């Protein structure tokens, strides 16, 4: 049982990791679209853009799931 729990926990950890990579890739592109990279830091606007990007993406995801559950009833 312990080994199964360990595997499950590792799998879910690596699923979260993969999601973070995909979200970062997507939001880095969206928040830097149409402008050059001029500094290695993140100002407060950029940090806000990334956080908003992630949360609005997850909001969109929830809306889509709800719509598909609604239409399959």
């Amino acid at each position, binding site marked *: 049982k312990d080994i199964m729990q360990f595997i499950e926990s590792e799998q879910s950890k690596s699923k979260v990791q993969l999601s973070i990579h995909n979200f970062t890739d997507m*939001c880095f592109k969206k928040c830097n679209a149409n402008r050059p990279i001029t500094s290695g830091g993140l100002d407060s606007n950029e940090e806000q*853009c990334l956080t*908003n990007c992630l949360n*609005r993406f997850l909001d*969109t995801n929830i*809306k*889509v799931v709800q*719509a*598909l559950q609604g239409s399959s009833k």
Partner: protein
Amino acid sequence: QIAQELAVANATELVSKITENCFEKCIVNPSVALNAQEDYCVNQCLEKYMRSWNVISKAYITRIQQSSAEK
């Protein structure tokens, strides 16, 4: 009917593709909440995507059947 069976089985992939496409299309400058315009856009977009999926399914199955018939 075939299309619907496939849809149910593959719902996760469908959710993920719709979310990606509609987020890309509707949310250009992400803000602190989905505004009314973005919310409306996502609703229209997800409907249009599902209808598009149906059209492509039918067209692809028709094409597969045509090319099987030609053999």
